[in-house]
């Protein structure tokens, strides 16, 4: 029994040692990666003399290398993200600009798709807000463009829209006026987003109920009973690193103050779990052995 206990203790220590080696290896790997982001000090002059009793002259002697003519900066790492309240945009992301039903002022549903497919009709309207974030460490220049199409192309839908940016800039239309689909298709915005900053846009659209052309509305509605007449709107954005990395357009992202290295603690947690499982298995085996001996 004593021998068994010693054996168990040795194994345990062996496991702990191996785990320590694993964690150390992980830390070394992380450090190697993080090292790429540390400032390059080559050519820099030390501000602290090696011998603290030395006078000023010795400081000059220690400057054996002239500093580099160009200042060494942090490696820019841009990170641009577009999103709405449902999540981040990826490639060809389907978002909810249109709906399958619409309510009137008294919260009664007055327009309802019969198929679960989004619809538009006189009186329908909606608002869609989306956000651009720069969580990197360098400014980004971005472009926002629209692509609005009606199919079949020979139809004209009297839907109108307006777009404004967080700072009150109207990209399309204005506070009182909506713009037509051709104007929506041509709308675009170009701006710079500073490091750690974000911006947002609000797109409002409406198909006027008391529009100028009831005959057109009726013609479209009747035609829609026999064929699909669709309206598609794409919001396209591209972002490139700004020539001025310190440009500061946009709103500052809030700093949560939590800088904990979660990855490190996650590795520790997983390692602990593995040790717990192994100890449980070993204990189980020992009990089995003891039973066998008995």
């Amino acid at each position: 029994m004593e021998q068994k206990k010693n054996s168990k203790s040795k194994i345990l220590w062996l496991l702990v040692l191996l785990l320590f080696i694993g964690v150390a290896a992980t830390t070394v790997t992380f450090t190697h990666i993080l090292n790429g982001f540390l400032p390059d000090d080559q050519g820099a002059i030390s501000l602290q003399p090696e011998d603290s009793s030395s006078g000023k002259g010795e400081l000059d002697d220690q400057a054996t290398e002239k500093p580099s003519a160009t200042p060494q900066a942090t490696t820019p790492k841009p990170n641009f993200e577009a999103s709405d309240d449902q999540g981040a945009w990826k490639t060809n992301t389907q978002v909810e600009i249109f709906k399958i039903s619409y309510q009137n002022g008294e919260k009664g549903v007055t327009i309802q798709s019969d198929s679960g497919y989004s619809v538009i009709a006189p009186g329908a309207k909606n608002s869609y807000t989306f956000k651009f974030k720069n969580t990197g460490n360098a400014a980004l220049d971005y472009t926002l463009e629209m692509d609005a199409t009606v199919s079949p192309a020979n139809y004209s839908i009297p839907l109108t829209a307006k777009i404004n940016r967080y700072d009150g800039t109207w990209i399309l239309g204005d506070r009182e006026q909506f713009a037509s689909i051709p104007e929506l298709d041509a709308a675009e915005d170009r701006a710079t987003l500073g490091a750690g900053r974000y911006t947002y846009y609000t797109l409002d659209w409406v198909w006027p109920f008391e529009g100028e052309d009831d005959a057109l509305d009726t013609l479209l509605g009747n035609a829609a009973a026999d064929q699909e007449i669709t309206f598609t709107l794409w919001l396209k954005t591209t972002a490139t690193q700004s020539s001025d990395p310190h440009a500061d357009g946009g709103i500052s992202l809030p700093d949560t103050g939590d800088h904990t290295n979660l990855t490190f603690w996650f590795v520790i947690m997983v390692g602990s779990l593995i040790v717990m499982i192994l100890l449980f298995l070993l204990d189980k085996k020992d009990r089995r052995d003891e039973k066998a001996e008995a």
Partner: protein
Amino acid sequence: MKKNKMMRVASALLVAVLLTTSVISGTYAKYTTAEEAGDTARVAKWGVGITTSGTLFAEQYKDAPIANASDDSITVQVANHADATTDNVVAPGTKNEDGITFTLTGTPEVDLALTIAVETKDIVLPKKDGYTDYTDGNKVDTFDLANDYHPVVFTLTNGAGGTLATGTIEAIKTYLEGLTRAKIDSNTNLDTYFVGTDGTTKTDGTYKLTWEWAFEQNNKADTYIGNVIAGTVTDATCKTDISFDITITADQIN
């Protein structure tokens, strides 16, 4: 036994290394490139159909079905029926069993209001005592009417032939205007929206209006009315025009 333990330890370490590797690889996947987002919608269906066919009144009538192509016998006709401006005519013994048909169809994806407005005129001899009886030629005898006399009887049926309303043209007007609805919900099939006169049975969206002026109904009153129409008797209280105009309107509501 020892080998087994070592195998377990080795396996556990392998798992730990794999987990660590996945975490490291995760640090390279943080950068995302936003591209584009969009949505598509189709125009909501309207497709409300209101169609009419047929005529109620004509310039001439036959008292029996047409026997063959050469049968052109006519029992009642307008005196100048070849004249395009001549009025249509009704008389005792005339009827129109084909009448006019109007249909309501469609399943719009929007709420709507349905308005039916009917304008009518009817031939009527008001109730009164002492009308001159012109049937016996002496112009002395009289006859009385206890109620207003409407000689033309209208019948409104559905597509299956079920009678929805019958009687004076005013009764038809009341029934049809009763189909007016301030709000019909979206995705309602108008073909089968309304119920018949029993209050429960759905009628289809087809309505047919016919009429008849029975030949043997009230000869004295019919003769009196005929004389008023011909102008041989003057009686402003006797109405001799008959007409039926229906306007059906469907409007989207918001």
